[in-house]
């Protein structure tokens, strides 16, 4: 009897220990719906093979809904999400609020020093990395080389705004449905204002001076908005004020944009024969400048971060290490080719000869390296961020200003009126937020 009891006790202890060893931790990952994230969800077998004790639940949401839900959860310490997808705008703001877990203690094979310095800088506060980049992007010019040749022009690898204006004029053939230049016109802080803020940086304009006073009444901003409206009115597609990233990408895939300035991340699709019949005719150039030392390119990285309220931080770190490791890039390449590897995060990717041979690789890394979020403008500014100012008020303010500028593009108001309205609105907002005393 005693022997049986002991055997049963022993078996129970063994069972309990085995159970403990295989205790499954479930983490909830909140993410956006884009091609790279969808691809990652298809490669989860590799993660489960390496981490059999972690289960991942995905919550995929549209970007703005994700931002709203994650903000509400983190601000209230809800702990619903263990890993969240955030951008370079949120990372420094949330880290300063103490909402994010530091990631400097990821395992050695994560190789933190391999991250591109500009991207790492944008996701760090006081030397601590708070979000691990999943893919990074800048912006550059893509154009149809056949149309440039037909028009008898050459677009330099590092063009000026005058080069871009001349090329747009030369390649426009509205009757044939070819538009010289496609730029973002749809209102939004991540749409037209991402482009216009980057353009402003190259023109020597800035959102705020060192005392947070808005600068839309400066001659630099007038030059920016005048040239932008003129270029799109003369050489852009009809209804340009409604076109965002998606619309302009579609026009480019169909060959209707002779030239477009937008995210480097779209290069893979533009050079993919399955998506565009003009894939072998696409050329790339750096975003233009005015000779003032700053180019009109932005910097963005979708990144994975752990809210401080997560109760599964170790499992979350294991997931982030897998999803943003060098090995993950190799995994994607082995399944779908190097063209589909998430770009713009690691130095080693661009040192890889196979990746470097892709037509957009060099221009992408050069564009990312040309962006400096800590020193984004010609004149000094009190904020961090290239196409945004990393303060909580920026998203709302820039969206309102974006609506004003989009109306100017649509011809509903003059450039002068739009700038005056933007200035008044920004001064009121910054005053009520306490930046202007």
């Amino acid at each position, binding site marked *: 009897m005693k022997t049986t009891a002991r055997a049963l006790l022993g078996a129970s202890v063994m069972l309990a220990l085995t159970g403990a060893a295989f205790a499954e931790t479930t983490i*909830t990952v*909140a993410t*956006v*719906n*884009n*091609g790279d994230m*969808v691809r990652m*969800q298809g490669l989860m077998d590799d993660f489960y093979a390496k981490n059999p004790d972690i289960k991942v*639940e995905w*919550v*995929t*949401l*549209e*970007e*703005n*809904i994700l931002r*709203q*839900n994650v903000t*509400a*959860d983190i601000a*209230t310490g*809800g702990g*619903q*999400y263990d890993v969240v997808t955030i951008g370079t705008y949120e990372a420094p703001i949330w880290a300063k609020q103490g909402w994010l877990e530091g990631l400097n203690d990821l395992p050695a094979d994560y190789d933190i020093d391999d991250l591109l310095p500009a991207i790492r800088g944008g996701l760090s506060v006081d030397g601590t990395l708070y979000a691990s980049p999943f893919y990074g992007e800048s912006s550059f010019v893509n154009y149809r080389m056949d149309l440039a040749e037909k028009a008898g022009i050459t677009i330099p690898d590092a063009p000026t705004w005058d080069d871009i204006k001349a090329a747009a004029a030369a390649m426009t053939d509205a009757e044939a449905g070819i538009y010289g230049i496609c730029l973002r016109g749809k209102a939004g802080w*991540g749409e037209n204002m991402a482009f216009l803020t980057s353009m402003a940086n190259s023109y020597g304009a800035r959102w705020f001076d060192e005392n947070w006073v808005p600068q839309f009444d400066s001659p630099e901003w007038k030059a920016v908005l005048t040239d932008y409206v003129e270029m799109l009115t003369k050489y852009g597609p009809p209804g340009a004020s409604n076109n*965002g*990233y*998606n*619309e302009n*990408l*579609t*026009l480019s*895939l*169909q060959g*209707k944009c002779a030239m477009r300035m937008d*995210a480097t991340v779209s290069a893979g699709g533009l050079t993919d024969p399955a*998506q565009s019949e003009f894939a072998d005719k696409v050329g790339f150039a750096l975003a233009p400048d005015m000779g003032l030392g700053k180019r009109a390119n932005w910097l963005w990285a979708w990144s994975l971060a752990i809210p401080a309220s997560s109760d599964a931080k170790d499992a979350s770190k294991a997931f982030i290490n897998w999803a943003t490791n060098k090995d993950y890039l190799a995994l994607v390449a082995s399944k779908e080719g190097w063209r589909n590897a998430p770009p713009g995060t690691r130095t080693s990717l661009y040192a890889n000869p196979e990746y470097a041979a892709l037509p957009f690789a060099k221009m992408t890394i050069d564009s990312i390296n040309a962006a400096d979020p800590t020193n984004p403008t010609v004149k000094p500014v009190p904020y961090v961020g290239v196409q945004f100012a990393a303060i909580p008020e920026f998203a709302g303010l820039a969206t309102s200003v974006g609506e004003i500028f989009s109306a100017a593009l649509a011809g509903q108001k003059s450039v002068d009126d739009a700038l005056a309205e933007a200035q008044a609105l920004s001064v009121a907002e910054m005053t009520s937020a306490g930046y202007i005393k």
Partner: protein
Amino acid sequence: MARTVTPRRKLYFTLAAWTVALLIFFPVFWTILTSFKTEVSAVASPPQLFTADWTLENYAEVWSRSDYPRFFWNSVVISVGSTLLGLLIAIPAAWSMAFVPGNRTKDLLMWMLSTKMMPAAAVLIPMYLIFQKTGLFDTRIGLVLALMLMNLPVIVWMLYTYFKEIPGEILEAARMDGASLRNEIIYVLTPMAIPGIASTMLLNIILAWNEAFWTITLTTVDAAPLSAFIASFSAPQGLFYAKLSAASTMAIAPILILGWFSQKQLVRGLTFGAVK
């Protein structure tokens, strides 16, 4: 004196009705068509109504990428549950307002309706905190309660309007025959108001099924209904319109079918008492 309707007049009315119906249905029709297109033809410029390369690929991918049955079941539980719970509370409330009104009944009704005028986002943080602290976050019972509360004013108002059409003398007669209050409501009032109750129920199931703000905000994984399913295929950047359309079609199909089969009931209930 009866008004004569000439054939010409009838033709105009028919044409106008068809035009309005087609205008309302067109976005749904467009979504369904887009769900069978490739991603490239879905965003063709200028837009094309029809395409040469129809495909079922979007449905296959949407099905494989997400747990549709779980989202569907959550939608069923949340919409039906919140409606039934709402009716349970609203029928006695509407009875009292219609048949034994007090001095403040009208004010009370207006106050109830005024809660619908408040934008949902205004109470986002309190609701979020309450749901988190009470453990209702990401639970079906939590959403049943939230949507019931949200739709209760509409349910009470609709039932109140229907009950007002029922002669109070009939209920009085039942009372004189010795019917208790419970029996009066269950055996006398409810059978007479069945068309109104049915249409209220159907309309509220539709409202709850389509609700997207709270159902997305107050859920993550376990209780997420079809509104969250659609949102998971929405992307401001990237060419996923065809898959989004397939997800939308899969989400609206059940409620469209329900609406189609119950339209006679719905129309009868909605026009109940409108023409005397």
